[in-house]
């Protein structure tokens, strides 16, 4: 890719990531799920094993598409007590870097996800790593991994929201 091409690619990727963040912040999880290919993965490793492999390491989240859909269904219901009523969230994405091939784009980005509920605030800080595929003039997510920079979850209690 030329430098100009990389820049244009990054702009498109950034627009995609911002749109994804907006869907999450709007709790429009059904449309958010449409961003994922059916063989996609969504992973959050444990704070003390950031290179964790779900085949043999404990993870915080290791969703294939089926479980991701179940996660959305759960969070849409009134019985996901931790998130009913929903937190107000603000997903912030920055330091976006784009690489990979024409077929599959690899993206790394920093994130800050703020979560507010019941007078309290939590902040998740970390790095995203995406694998994106070009589809219908846009992108589909093949993999999303959110690595938390916090050394533990003591300040945030859980990962009940989607990062």
């Amino acid at each position, binding site marked *: 890719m030329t430098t100009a091409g990389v820049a244009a690619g990054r702009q498109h990727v950034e627009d995609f990531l911002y749109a994804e963040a907006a869907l999450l912040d709007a709790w429009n999880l059904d449309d958010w799920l449409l961003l994922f290919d059916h063989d996609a993965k969504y992973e959050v490793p444990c704070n003390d094993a950031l290179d964790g492999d779900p085949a*043999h390491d*404990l*993870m*915080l989240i*290791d969703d294939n598409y089926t479980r991701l859909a*179940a996660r959305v269904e759960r969070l849409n219901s009134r019985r*996901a007590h931790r998130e009913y009523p929903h937190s107000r969230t603000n997903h912030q994405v920055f330091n976006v870097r784009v690489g990979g091939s024409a077929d599959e784009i690899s993206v790394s980005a920093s994130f800050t996800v703020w979560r507010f509920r019941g007078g309290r605030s939590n902040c998740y800080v970390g790095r995203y790593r995406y694998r994106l595929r070009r589809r219908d003039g846009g992108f589909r997510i093949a993999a999303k991994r959110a690595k938390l920079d916090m050394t533990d979850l003591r300040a945030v209690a*859980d990962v*009940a929201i989607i990062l």
Partner: protein
Amino acid sequence: MSTSIHAAQMPIVVDDPAAQRFKVHRSAMTSREVHRAEIDRIFAESWLYVGHESEIPKPGDFVRRPVAGRPVFMVRGAETGNINVFHNTCTHRGALVCRQDSGNSKVFQCFYHAWTFDSEGRLKGVPGRDAYSGGVDFDDLGLKRVARVESYRGFVFASFDPGIVDLPDYLAGAKDYIDLVIDGCGGSVEMVRGSNQYSFAANWKLLVENSFDGYHAESTHDTYFKYLVSIGTDLRGGVSGRAVDLGNGHAVIEYSAPWGRPVAKWEPLFGEDARTEIDRLRADLVTRHGEQGARAMAEVNRNLLIYPNLIINDIMSVTVRTLYPPAPDVVDVTAWALAPVDELAALRHRRLDSFLTFLGPGGFATPDDIEALESCQQGFASGGVEWNDISRGMGRVPMANDEEQMRAFWRRWQQQMGNAADLAGAQ
């Protein structure tokens, strides 16, 4: 006359078998005096879980972590091979000597003045030693061991109380249940890499109750059970079992449940390939422990409390979880996954999958437990209602969805805390 909602009430636990009523005053969860007394009377005078021997297999391997809020570290001695648990503080002026969460080292050097200790705790290096006159005995300035350290089946416990009873006596009836967990895993287990360290705004004893509360599962975890059904688990068998007081505050609920167990109860979710291995594991348990023993290990679930703050839940996965209260309304949870060594990859994957989905803080159940317990703590602040009711199942043979296991905990808690008159006086 109104009373402070935080004032300790006397007695805190009311156990009335004749009336089949068991009540706990809510100041047990809110009072600063009660919390301070718990640190002195319970956490300083119990056996507390430090870690698992499999975490430090080689000489010089170490892990550091707080035990009852106190920084300690556990290291396998390079010379003796013994498990040493030291107070993590330099004997010179106090700095931490172990400043990494885990690793391997023959020496532990305090960076402040470079005093250096070996893995057996001996003081080996003091820069400028000739500046000290004869009054300092360097042999006496080795790392301070935690007063008592003993292991049971690979679980390392420590106590800050030098006079505490030996660990096997302390564990009482809980020993048999630890045996079931370990023997069920074929006798040899390890901690899986990756841990869950989370905290939330509720009293620690609410999580003790919640960790073996069969009564809440259906109402609190509706979304989890829906998920299980969606992936093909047949829930029609339901849950049935009993609660057992194991002595010294330890207790267990043991029950059959519809979900599969990697050792050794197959369900379709595991796939046909895993079926052969699960059949083999079960047959192996029958050979070693007989049909009855094998059934107890393979098919029966158990949620076990080792008093005061260790939970071992052997369900669709095995979690080892410790609790500690840095404040009356905060609990620090640290949780690990325990698994058989040399487990078939597919079963290990399924075990971890079940762990993170049900037991993990990013799963479909634990966040809702956290919400429930924080909600209780918030409810206590309302006042008006002074007592929690823990009477369920009194007057019958206690079932797994009763509250006898919680009463066993609370009785021992009350015994250790004393009659609380001194707490009431501290208002």
